C-alpha cells in the first residue's frame, strides 16, 4: 500500500484496476467522466477500454463481457442511466457470471444536469444492490467489494458517487500493483436456458432475486459499510440521532466534531436496506434526523422499518420540512440543521452587506465556433417565424443573451423530435434542431431517420467541433481516435445523413460569417429535411494563437460587437471596445461585424 492524491473518480478507476477489471466502457457525462479516462491512462495489459457511442451500447458491452466471466465496469452520469435502463433492467433479471459494476454518478444541485434523480431509487426499482461512497477512499475500497459481491451473487452492482465525491481530491491509501487481483475470464459458455430471457425464466429469476435481496439486506447489516457511532462524552445520554449516507456523512461528521458525539447511523448500502442495523440504531432513540441529498431514501426506509418492527422513533428529514427537498447540502446547512435538531444555539453568520456582486452565468468561450454558428442562423432567419431546438452540450449556452438562440433543451437528441413535431403542426414555422457532433452519434441518428421517412421539414444544424467538449474533450466516432490509442477511420456525419436520405448536406466554416449566413438562408428555404454541418474545432483543444486588436482611433464606440455576439473577450471601457488578450483567440467574428473596420488581426475565414 502507498498514499496517492487522487480525485474521487481517479480513485474509483484505480480501485477497478486493483480489482482486475477486464473491460471498461461508458459515455462521458459530468460528474462521471474521469473514471474511464483514468483507466485508459493506466490501462493494464489485457484490459479493453472504450468510449461507447452511448450508455445503452456501453451497458450491453459490459453485460456481454460479464456473460463470459470477465470483470466489467460501465460508467455514466445519472441521466445516462435513463438511456441504459433497458439493458440494465434485463441484466438484473438475467444476471451475470463475471463481476459487473455499474458506476453512475449523481449530481445534487443539480450542478451540470437536467434532473436531480437519485440512483439509489433506481437501484431499488431495478432490484440491484448499491454502494454509496462518502469519500474517495471509501469509493476506492467499495468498488473492489462491489466486484466481489457481483461475482459472488451473479448480479450487477451499482456504485453511486455524487459530484463532491467524484470531483473531490484526497490523499488516500491505494494498493501497489503486486497486490492487484488478476482476472482471467473463462469466456462465454453456451447455455440458452441461462442467457436467453423468456417470460418463464424472468418469473423464476424474479423469485430468486427477491430471496437474494433479503439475504443481502442481512449481509449489509453485518457489513462495516453500514455502521453506528454511539453517543459519547457530553452527548452520551442523547436520545436524538443522525442517519446519513454519501457525501453528507462528511458534513455530519464535521458537525459531530463541533457539536459533540451524538449517535450516528451511516448507510453505505441504501439498497437492499440494512434493516437489522437500522433497528439496532433506532430502538434507543426518540428522534432521528435524516441527512441525505436527492430523494429521502434513508428517511423512507427508516419510516418503513419503524412500521415493520413497531418502533416509536420519530423520523425527520425532507418529508417533515426539517431538511430541504431539493439541491445540495453544505457544511453550513447540515451543521445548522443538526444544531437546531439537538436544541443547541445556532451559529449566527456576521451581518454584513457586501457591494452588489456580478452574476456570472457560464458562457461560450471567447472564439468558440458555436457563437458564430448561432449568430449566422440568427442573422439569416431575422424576421421569420422560427423555433430553435437546442440540445445537451456546450452549445446549450447559446441560450444566453445576446445570442438567445436556444428555445428548447430537454435531453440528448430531443431537439430533433421537437423540431419535427413542430414542423408537422405549424407548417409556417422555420424549424431548426441544433446538435453537437458527439450528441449526433449518441442519440440523433434515429431522429433523422424518423424525420426523413415521416416527411418532416426542418433544418438540422450539426455543430461539429470534432470533440465532446463539455465533458472535457473525449473522442467519439467522428474523431478518428479510440481510447485504446488507435488511429482509425472516422465515421462521416455527412455520409450518414446522405445514407439516410437527407439530400442537402452542406459543410461550412461558421467563422466565415457571410458564407455561413448565405448558406443558412439558402438551405433552410428548401423543403423536407436538410442539414448544415458547421465545422470548426473547439478552441480549448485547437488553442489558436491569433489575437485581434481594436484601433481606438477607428472605433466609434457603437458597441455593436458587444451587443451582437456577447464574446467574453470583449468589453467596453466607457468609450471604446477593448479586447482581453488573455481570452481572445483571433476568431475574427467581431472584426467581420464591425461597421467601421476598427478590428484587425486574427484569422482570415473567407
Amino acid at each position, binding site marked *: 500500500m502507498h498514499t496517492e492524491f487522487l480525485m474521487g473518480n481517479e480513485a474509483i478507476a484505480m480501485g477497478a484496476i486493483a480489482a482486475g477489471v477486464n473491460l471498461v466502457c461508458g459515455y462521458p457525462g459530468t460528474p462521471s467522466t474521469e473514471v474511464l479516462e483514468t483507466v485508459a491512462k493506466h490501462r493494464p495489459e489485457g484490459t479493453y477500454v472504450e468510449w461507447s457511442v452511448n450508455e445503452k451500447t456501453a451497458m450491453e458491452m459490459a453485460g456481454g463481457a460479464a456473460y463470459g466471466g470477465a470483470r466489467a465496469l460501465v460508467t455514466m452520469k445519472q441521466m445516462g442511466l435513463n438511456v441504459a435502463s433497458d439493458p440494465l433492467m434485463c441484466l438484473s433479471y438475467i444476471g451475470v457470471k463475471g463481476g459487473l459494476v455499474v458506476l453512475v454518478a449523481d449530481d445534487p444541485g443539480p450542478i451540470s444536469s437536467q434532473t436531480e434523480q437519485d440512483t439509489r431509487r433506481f437501484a431499488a426499482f431495478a432490484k440491484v444492490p448499491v454502494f454509496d461512497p462518502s469519500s474517495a477512499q471509501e469509493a476506492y475500497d467499495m468498488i473492489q467489494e462491489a466486484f466481489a459481491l457481483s461475482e459472488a451473487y451473479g448480479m450487477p452492482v451499482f456504485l453511486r458517487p455524487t459530484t463532491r465525491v467524484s470531483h473531490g*481530491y484526497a490523499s488516500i491509501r491505494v494498493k501497489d500493483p503486486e497486490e492487484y487481483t488478476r482476472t482471467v475470464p473463462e469466456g462465454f459458455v453456451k447455455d440458452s436456458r441461462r442467457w436467453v430471457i423468456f417470460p418463464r425464466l424472468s418469473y423464476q429469476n424474479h423469485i430468486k432475486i427477491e430471496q437474494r435481496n433479503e439475504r443481502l439486506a442481512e449481509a449489509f447489516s453485518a457489513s462495516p459499510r453500514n455502521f453506528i457511532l454511539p453517543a459519547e462524552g457530553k452527548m452520551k445520554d442523547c436520545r436524538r440521532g443522525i442517519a446519513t449516507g454519501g457525501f453528507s456523512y462528511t*458534513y455530519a461528521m464535521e458537525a459531530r466534531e463541533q457539536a459533540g458525539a451524538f449517535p450516528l447511523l451511516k448507510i453505505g448500502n441504501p439498497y437492499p436496506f440494512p434493516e437489522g442495523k437500522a433497528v439496532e440504531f433506532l430502538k434507543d432513540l426518540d428522534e432521528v434526523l435524516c441527512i441525505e441529498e436527492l430523494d429521502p431514501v434513508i428517511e423512507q426506509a427508516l419510516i418503513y422499518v419503524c412500521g415493520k418492527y413497531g418502533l416509536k422513533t420519530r423520523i425527520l428529514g425532507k418529508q417533515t420540512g426539517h431538511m430541504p427537498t431539493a439541491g445540495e447540502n453544505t*457544511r453550513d446547512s447540515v451543521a445548522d440543521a443538526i444544531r437546531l435538531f439537538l436544541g443547541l444555539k445556532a451559529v449566527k453568520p456576521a451581518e454584513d452587506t457586501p457591494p452588489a456582486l*456580478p452574476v456570472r452565468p457560464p458562457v461560450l468561450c471567447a472564439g468558440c465556433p458555436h457563437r458564430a454558428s448561432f449568430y449566422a442562423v440568427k442573422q439569416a432567419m431575422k424576421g421569420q417565424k422560427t423555433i430553435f431546438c437546442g440540445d445537451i452540450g456546450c452549445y446549450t449556452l447559446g441560450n444566453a443573451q445576446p445570442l438567445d438562440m436556444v428555445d428548447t433543451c430537454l435531453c440528448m437528441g430531443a431537439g430533433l423530435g421537437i423540431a419535427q413535431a413542430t414542423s408537422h403542426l405549424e407548417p409556417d414555422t422555420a424549424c431548426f434542431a441544433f446538435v453537437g457532433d458527439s450528441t449526433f452519434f449518441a442519440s440523433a441518428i434515429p431522429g433523422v431517420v424518423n424525420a426523413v421517412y415521416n416527411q418532416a421539414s426542418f433544418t438540422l444544424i450539426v455543430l461539429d467541433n470534432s470533440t465532446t467538449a463539455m465533458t472535457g474533450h473525449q473522442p467519439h466516432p467522428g474523431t478518428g481516435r479510440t481510447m485504446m490509442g488507435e488511429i482509425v477511420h472516422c465515421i462521416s456525419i455527412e455520409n450518414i445523413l446522405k445514407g439516410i436520405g437527407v439530400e442537402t448536406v452542406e459543410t461550412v466554416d461558421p467563422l466565415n460569417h457571410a458564407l455561413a449566413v448565405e448558406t443558412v438562408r439558402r438551405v433552410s428555404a428548401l423543403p423536407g429535411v436538410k442539414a448544415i454541418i458547421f465545422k470548426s474545432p473547439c478552441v480549448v483543444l485547437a488553442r489558436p494563437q491569433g489575437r485581434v486588436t481594436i484601433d481606438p482611433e477607428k472605433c466609434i464606440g457603437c458597441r455593436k460587437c458587444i451587443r451582437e455576439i456577447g464574446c467574453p473577450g*470583449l468589453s467596453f471601457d466607457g468609450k471604446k471596445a477593448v479586447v482581453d488578450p488573455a481570452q481572445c483567440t483571433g476568431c475574427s467574428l467581431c472584426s467581420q461585424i464591425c461597421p467601421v473596420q476598427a478590428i484587425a488581426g486574427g484569422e482570415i475565414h473567407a
Partner: protein
Amino acid sequence: MRKNIILCGVGGQGTVLASRLISAAAMARGLPVMSAETIGMAQRGGSVFSHLRIGEGIYSPMIARGEADLILGFEPGEAVRMLPWLKEGGQAVVSARPVMPVTSTLSGAAYSAEEMIAYLKEKVANLTIVDTEKALNDVGSPKVLNLILLGAALHAGALGFDETEMRDAILARIPPKFHELNLRALSWAGQQQAAK
C-alpha cells in the same frame, strides 16, 4: 499543521492548477490533503472555487463559513463573494484586476473593481492586493496569474510552505517547457519586496 485555503476566480484563470501545486507541497511534507473544486459547465466563464484542506482529522473537503485561513482571490469580486468563508483574522491575497462579466458588459451595469477592493480593505486586516497588470507585464505572459498569486501568498507568509517547497511542486507537476516561466512568476512578488 492544519490549514484551510479557498482559491476563487473565474473559469479559465488557473485556480485548479494553483490548488494542485499547494496540495503537492503538502503531500511532499507528508500531510493529508483534501480538496474540492468546480468542474463542468460552470467552468466556462462562471464563478469557480477550490476548497483545500490540509492536516489530520478532516472528514470533508468542503470548508465551512468562517473557517478559511486564507482566500486566494483571482478576481476582486470573486474574493468578496467568498469572504464569508474567511475566518476572523484570516488572510487574503487578491488580484486587483477585474474580469468583466459578459452580463455587465452587455447591460452596461457598473461593476467596479475599486468598490470591491475598498470593501476588502475595510473587512480584511491582513490583505495583500496584487498589481496584476504590472506583474503580468513584468513576467511577460498573460497566462500565469495563478503563479503570480501563489508567489504573492508565499511572500506574504500565508501559505505555510516555503519557496523551495513551492518550486519543487512546480518542477514535479508542470511540464518542463513551462518551468522557467512559472518559476519566474512565482518569484515576482519576492522581487517586488526586495526592490522596496
